[in-house]
């Protein structure tokens, strides 16, 4: 799976969790929380959806690796391989 596929998977999940947010012009290197109205519960939801939809597990100590879209792609891509 390419990096852009993984990026799209994360964006699709965020769109469902925070449907009021505009996810079309996100800066991949900026923190998601700076750009979107997301709180810690939303990140738990992202982890949950990755597990439910794609069987990808993110252990608690790795949650900080979901901070930006770029870090999501770097961290998650091997798990989708």
């Amino acid at each position, binding site marked *: 799976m390419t990096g852009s596929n993984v990026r799209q998977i994360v964006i699709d999940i965020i769109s469902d969790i925070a*449907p009021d947010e505009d996810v079309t012009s996100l800066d991949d290197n900026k923190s998601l929380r700076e750009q979107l109205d997301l709180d810690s519960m939303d990140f738990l939801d992202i982890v949950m959806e990755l*597990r439910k939809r794609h069987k990808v597990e993110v252990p608690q100590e790795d949650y900080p690796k979901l901070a930006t879209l770029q870090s999501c792609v770097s961290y998650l891509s091997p798990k989708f391989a």
Partner: protein
Amino acid sequence: MTGIGLTAPNGNNLHEFRSALLECRSGVKHSEIRYMGTQVAGLCDFDEFKYQSKKLRRRGTRAGSISIYCANEAIADSGLNWESVDKSMVGVYLGITEHGNVETENEIFDMHQNNLDWKLWSPHHNPRTVANSPAGEVTLNLNITGPHYTLGSACAGGNVGIIQGVQQLLLDEVDIALVGGVSESPQTFGIFAAFAAQGALAHHQAAELASRPLDKNRNGIAISEGGCIYVLERLSSAKARGAKIYGEIVGWAINSDATDFVNPNPERQVQCMHKAIKRAGLTIHDIDIVNMHATGTGAGDVSESKAVRDAFHGATNTFVNFTKGHIGHCMGAAGSLELAGNLPSFDDGVVHPGMNVTELDPECAIPNLVYNKPHRAGKVNTILNNSFGMLGINSALIVKKYIS
């Protein structure tokens, strides 16, 4: 009572609701229920996003969403300048029949779709299912910092929430109380299955005819959702700000049958109504309308009909109606919604009819029963609203027309 916000299966504000009651428009329809297939249910179609973002709707519950809609509508209707209200002196007291079943059922279902992976259990489960959740969502939405909680009181919830608010106002705990009842019950299959197991689940080929309280051929309860929240304030404050006053709460009572888990006790129901009338300083002859709880079950309707006959024996000017033929049983919202449906009688003098009585059950015959067509009483000054629930909880609430 200075503001009303409501959603019922047949109306999303008081005007729509009252028109539907007078014109005998049902809100009960066929709906697909998980595992059970097509059943009758009363669902509301208010705009969930009028006062709430999509994200917070997703995070909360249907009962919370109903509560937020009703609370905002009630405040707008009250004419209060909300920005200048001291939010620490506002309380939220909502009656509920039950809470948390919807989320629990959904999550267990979801887990079964995912090989019983318990790690998929939602982190939102606890805040969604704590019993204060619907009232708490209102405080988050409206930035209210006074007290909030729900009153678990089965199907008496709508009245019990109002009574709690009155008591807190009398204790000076708050200056404004947002009170009433809410229900999300038809979002679960469990309540349908349980009433079916009891032989008390309404069914009919024509869904709008399924809920038929007091009819000889009634076959049970049509399960509905809904909500109705009032702005309550002390009469002095309502008068000082020149508020429109829907009515003045003058009497109330809550008691317990101490008899049975589900079967009612008419003697206790009579005692409850009489206690409320006594507290109001009235007699049975002063009550113009009695809105029955009348759910459409075999035993419940017979019991309450006897109770109303006995309680109002000799009161020749008291008219009796019921509302669940139109909307089904809105559970925790039933008491507050049905009261709201009757309040416009203070202005128009009309008693709305109970609907769907094709053949009145002789055991449910009551003097001055208004059914199938509205009755022009001319003058309505006092309404008594009954709301009863499982485990033998009875409530009666008396509202008087405010005459300045």
